[in-house]
């Protein structure tokens, strides 16, 4: 049974879910294409947030990390001949074992994952003991990052209890075939789907995953910690983002773009958390720290910033589609939460200009050195201007985005504005002037007739081409009223 979940709101990237009784749910993203050289596939399952650590160790167990065990070593060798690259993922929503393989090995990759599941020890074994010891050793090491992550997730700083009965209960509850998801970062042919459907997966586990508690995150307290031992500040924040997945990614790119431009951090990492939040951890200098403290609204200050955010979002989106294996959060989390992941590479210009509130709560580690480092920091205006002044520079290819310009114009223009907006082109030689003038008139006419821009609000200009400036550039620019 195929259920296409795209088509609404012009979404261009949606998932297709195939169900077969007694088998894992097969989730594919056909619009990612089926001609790329590599294919990413994840075997994922849900679990309650408290089991994140246990989920991580069970994922190690499924991935046959214990190569001392002969059967694990054989499976690993088999994986080597597939050219597979393994990675593990464990978050509050669930855990996964991910494989990147050559495109032609799609069915074999799922076969390997099933074989690994079948080889999962269902009794206290040496493999389990070794992994448990490894997890216990990892716990002993000091990791500020991990500690902050646990605090952010509202969890006690205690090592997880890793006894075998608990692990067995976890495996039996959450790794039953019907509870599993096989997620492909790409599309599959009918033949491949058919072959995957025929692959045997006989493990004696009964699914009880319906009893999973919902993911409710308790409100996070804002904690200020005096960190006296090192200069760079450290923040671990849960940042509240918009509800839709697409907008949340846009919000992420807008925030990173503004942050990198105004007060770049020394190091940072960001993950998706649940349905609304982003988890941010960063080492910051005083300026960057103050930026985070003061930021209250994230909206494009002018059309230039909106354009930059759109470009950053577009690049991020294309990277996500080109290398899905690099962004497991994005592909796995919505599937496990039962959401529809509808993505596209652009957003309406108004979204960037209306922006979002910026609310971050969490752990702020700082000291007086950070405060003294903010002397050069100029505080931003309390509120960004409600409406940005349009200023677009178009350099091709294709046709100028007249609709986008007109949308920004309509938001901005008031009848009382004294100075009309300008539509400029740039010439290299005098010979080009005639052609460019005609072209500008044509654009102006289209803006007036099709996009209802008042004729008195738009003038055209020809200017000499500055050095290093793209020759086909067209600028649409307005001025403050």
């Amino acid at each position, binding site marked *: 049974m195929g259920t296409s979940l795209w088509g609404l709101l012009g979404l261009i990237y949606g998932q297709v879910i195939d169900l077969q009784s007694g088998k894992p749910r097969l989730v594919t993203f056909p619009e990612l294409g089926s001609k790329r*050289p*590599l294919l990413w596939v994840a075997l994922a399952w849900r679990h309650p947030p408290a089991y994140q650590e246990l989920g991580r160790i069970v994922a190690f167990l499924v991935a046959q990390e214990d190569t001392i065990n002969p059967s694990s070593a054989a499976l690993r060798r088999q994986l080597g001949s597939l050219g597979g690259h393994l990675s593990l993922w464990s978050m509050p929503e669930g855990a996964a074992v991910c494989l*990147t393989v050559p495109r032609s090995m799609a069915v074999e990759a799922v076969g390997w994952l099933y074989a690994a599941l079948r080889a999962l020890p269902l009794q206290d074994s040496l493999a389990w003991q070794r992994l448990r010891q490894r997890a216990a050793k990892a716990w002993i090491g000091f990791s500020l990052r991990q500690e902050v992550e646990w605090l952010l997730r509202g969890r006690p700083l205690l090592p997880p209890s890793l006894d075998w009965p608990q692990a067995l209960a976890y495996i039996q509850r959450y790794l039953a075939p019907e509870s599993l998801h096989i997620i492909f970062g790409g599309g599959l042919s009918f033949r491949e789907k058919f072959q995957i459907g025929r692959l045997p997966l006989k493990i004696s586990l009964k699914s009880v995953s319906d009893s999973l508690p919902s993911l409710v995150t308790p409100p996070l307290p804002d904690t200020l910690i005096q960190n006296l031992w090192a200069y760079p500040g450290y923040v671990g924040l849960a940042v509240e983002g918009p509800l839709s997945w697409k907008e949340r990614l846009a919000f992420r790119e807008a925030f990173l773009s503004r942050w990198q431009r105004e007060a770049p951090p020394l190091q940072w990492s960001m993950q998706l958390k649940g349905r609304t939040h982003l988890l941010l951890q960063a080492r910051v200098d005083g300026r960057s720290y103050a930026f985070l403290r003061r930021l209250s609204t994230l909206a494009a200050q002018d059309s230039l910033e909106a354009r930059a955010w759109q470009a950053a979002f577009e690049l991020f989106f*294309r990277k996500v589609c*080109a*290398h899905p294996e*690099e962004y497991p959060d994005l592909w796995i989390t919505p599937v496990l939460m039962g959401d529809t992941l509808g993505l596209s590479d652009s957003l309406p210009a108004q979204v960037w200009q209306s922006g979002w509130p910026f609310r971050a709560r969490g752990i702020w580690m700082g000291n007086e050195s950070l405060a003294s480092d903010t002397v050069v920091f100029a505080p931003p205006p309390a509120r960004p201007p409600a409406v940005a002044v349009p200023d677009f520079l178009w350099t*091709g290819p294709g046709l100028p985005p007249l609709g986008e310009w007109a949308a920004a114009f309509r938001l901005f223009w008031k009848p009382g504005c004294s100075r009309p907006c300008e539509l400029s082109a740039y010439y290299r030689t005098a010979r080009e002037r005639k052609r460019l003038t005609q072209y500008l008139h044509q654009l102006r006419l289209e803006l007036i007739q099709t996009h209802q821009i008042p004729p008195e609000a738009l003038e055209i200009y020809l200017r000499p081409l500055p050095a*290093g*400036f793209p020759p086909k550039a067209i600028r649409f620019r307005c001025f403050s009223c």
Partner: protein
Amino acid sequence: MFQLLGLWAQALCAYTQETGYIQWLLFHPLERGRGEAVARTVAEGLFADSLLRQVAYTHGVRYRFRRRGQWFCVEGEATPEGLFTFFHVLRGAIQRFPQRLQQNAIPLVENPPELSRSFQVAYEDTLPVDLSPLALTQYFTRYWQAGGVGGVLRGKIPMPLLHLGREVVAGSVSEAYWPPQPPPTLSSPAHQGPGVVYIRWQLNGSPSLAAWAALWQQADALLHYLCAERQIACQAQWVPFAKGLELWIETGLPYATYQAAQDFLSRPFRPSPQRLPAFFTWIHRAENFLLAGWWACLWQIPQLPTAIPTLSPKELRRAARGWQLIAYTWNL
């Protein structure tokens, strides 16, 4: 078909793939592996051009500066449209650079970041450097203006971008190779503490896909041995050059790592066709996307495999014959 799948030129290599975006790299050698501060000052000064920065910002073009062995690299990613505009403006920025230098608009970079330390020690690139305007101009002219920079594009590359790229990267990269010299303290064994284990494979014959696959297999197997089996070193930088590969393994246990590497490399090595799928995955994985393109470019491999290569054991063994192998270690 050849045109569609991949293009190779002396200075600019283009490997087309339907990824929707492009990873790009501009690189040039450092003479005798020295002069990173000058190279960095020139490159950062060039890319600090206000118009270029503005275009990079509004078109979402990302870039970073990095030294890899004897090479100085500027690498980044962008959409094809964004990179087209960026290269266009970069051409203008190259023309404006001498004027900006005259106006003292170029910030000096005297202390390159720590990341390059292992390279600096190996090449003795720690001497005081001449960052006078004359030295910067000479350096700039030699590499950026007279075509001493090479380039790699990998991803979705439209033809106009390729033509423009060839105008920006118009010359030919110097064939000169400067291997790092063994440090003078090599006679005494490296002590425990931050150190580097350096391994270099130099090909006997001409580079080919078979030689690439075979060499990759040995380097990958060595790193797997050191990391997964011996658990003594897991960080390494791959630095290809025209006829071989360098591995710079960073470790806290240089002596033990060196011994383990020697043990491993002294065993007979037989490249296997069974590892070719893994080689193929390595070439196309995101984290090696640019490195693989660069390696192929330096080895003049015209196109990257689009399917798992079919090479016989005999071909692989023949390609692996007669490699020259050099390894040493030193403390940082």
